[in-house]
């Protein structure tokens, strides 16, 4: 054993891999084994068949819920981008102090429990909450229903996921060489043209990173849509939970999870072909 390690040590390029073994073992036991288990259950529960996949891919309910999941994730990603881009720009172009303050505010929501943030939105958007009170105060007698709609669940998910987008875009913006902007200006680029042809392409990797992260995380959202959304706009994770907890349909739940995983991996693969996954972490 000792000799083997010594031999391995002679080949320096193996060292990094050796350091990875504890992590690899950890992942194999706690991630890979359960995942394979889920994959097996999806074709063996209740008996050896692909029927679960057939139902997931053909059934009207599942199609609708999958479609809704992707629509929601797309909507949330777009909204995050619209919120995050100007904010990241502001951080990049303000004093260090202000940038730190904004960063602190952004990350603060990271430190707050997921459930607390979800319930906070229930309080804010509720019938006796400040927003409805304000709408009534300015003379609208029948205020719109805010809570338990697609609006409220989307808003809360954007709130939860926007930090990922902001930090991705901000880190890319910071690395932009100001000389590039100045030379573009000296060559006559102004206003929107400058943004369109110089700034936007330079920040594109940050946008792509942020979008992929937000989209992929959003696909698996569970608590927020269940607690804040309308019952007609279910997301797939909620349905997987129902299958397993209520119907004990481990096979169906597993098949749905595998389809979700496959789609997520496909998105990551496309991203990898275009940009390279290694860029995802800056």
């Amino acid at each position, binding site marked *: 054993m000792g000799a083997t390690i010594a031999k391995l040590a002679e080949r320096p390029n193996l060292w990094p891999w050796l350091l990875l073994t504890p992590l690899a073992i950890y992942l194999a*036991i*706690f991630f890979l*084994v*359960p995942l394979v288990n889920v994959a097996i259950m999806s074709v063996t529960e209740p008996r050896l068949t692909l029927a679960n996949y057939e139902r997931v891919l053909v059934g*009207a*309910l599942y199609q*609708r*819920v999958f479609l809704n999941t992707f629509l929601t994730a797309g909507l949330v990603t777009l909204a995050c981008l619209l919120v995050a881009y100007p904010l990241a720009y502001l951080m990049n172009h303000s004093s260090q102090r202000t940038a730190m303050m904004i960063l602190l505010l952004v990350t603060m929501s990271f430190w707050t429990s*997921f459930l607390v943030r979800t319930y906070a939105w*229930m*309080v804010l958007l*509720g*019938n*006796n909450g400040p927003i409805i009170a304000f709408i009534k105060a300015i003379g609208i007698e029948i205020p719109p*229903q805010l*809570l*338990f709609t697609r609006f409220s669940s989307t808003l809360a998910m954007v709130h939860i996921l926007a930090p990922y987008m902001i930090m991705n875009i901000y880190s890319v913006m910071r690395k932009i060489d100001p000389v590039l902007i100045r030379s573009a200006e000296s060559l006559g680029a102004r206003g929107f043209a400058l943004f369109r042809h110089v700034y936007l392409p330079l920040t594109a990797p940050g946008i792509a990173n942020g979008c992929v992260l937000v989209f992929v*995380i959003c696909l*698996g*959202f*569970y*608590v927020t849509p*269940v*607690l804040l959304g309308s*019952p*007609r706009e*279910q997301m797939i*994770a909620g*349905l997987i*939970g*129902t299958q*397993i*907890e*209520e*119907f*004990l*349909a*481990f096979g169906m739940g597993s098949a749905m999870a595998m389809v979700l995983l496959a789609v997520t991996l496909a998105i990551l693969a496309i991203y990898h072909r275009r940009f390279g996954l290694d860029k995802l972490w800056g």
Partner: protein
Amino acid sequence: MTVRRNRAPFLLAPSRRSFLKASGAAVTTTLAMPYIAQAQENVLYINTWGGPWEEAAKQYIFDPFTTETGIEIRTVSPVSFAKLAQQVRTGTYEFDVTTLGAGELIRAEQAGLIEELEAPFDGGLFHNGIASHAFATVIAWRTDKFSDGGPQNWAEFWDVERFPGPRSLQRYPARVLPLALLADGVAPEDLYPLDIDRAFASLDRIKDHVLVWWTAGAQSTQILRDGEVDLIGIWHGRYFEAEDAGAPVAMTWNQGEIERAYWVVAKGTPNAENARKFVEFATSPEPLAGFVTQADYGPLNLAANEFISTEDAARMPTSPDNYPLTFEQEIDNFGADIEEVAQRFEEWLAS
């Protein structure tokens, strides 16, 4: 970002257990780790609902049981039927004893997930579960919205002209379909077996007015207390939480839908002997009376009633005054495959 964790692999469990032993954790401890089926020390693992439920159970059942038998109790929450199934499947037990509703109980018995038990009192045994306590799904409303009184039955709950306003019901078809039939004019004694198509047709009428299909008990209390909905079908204990918090709410026992909770023992657990002792103790009159009073249930061992004051009994669906107003679920005469109905309900909700 799911809240449910996967079943933790059991590799870590032995060290966790010896650590607990070493630290002399002799009191009730919440233990999230499963353990390998093996010869046991004198310990029983009980699956609880956590929160106030567990506090009540600890005070009136767990602690007195430990005092009497010397068997230490550790708890695992929350209650999960799926976990019970997984335990038997894998031989890795996280808990020995849990409570189930009638529907789950029948499925658990059919799937061979629970041990055979004997009746500790008359009428206490049902499909190898021991009847313990009951709760009711009742009609409740906001008194600030309906100052002249709220709906007195489910037909009135369905009447959106007379009682306009957003409503909430539980996202649980086995409970909601009977209510929909009552609302459609079926008499309580003619409910079972259920006319499923008629129930869904009745639900169609109220669908647009149900703002929230609640999934968690705490959520139902919150939306009633905060006035997010004006009317709700809610478990009676959860209703009293809102009332005790001072919310302007009222309820009726009329057409309250009673459901029974049963203690069961996980099939094949090495702790089966202790588990049997526990189930018998938990359903004996005095501990049960204390527990149901504190946790807002009604006792199913009628001998417990002599330990319950009239004032407390008024808050119980099984009390002599309230029980005649209510009706009971008959899951074994449901009239359809519950799982198919549940799938149909989910599809109906999403459409």
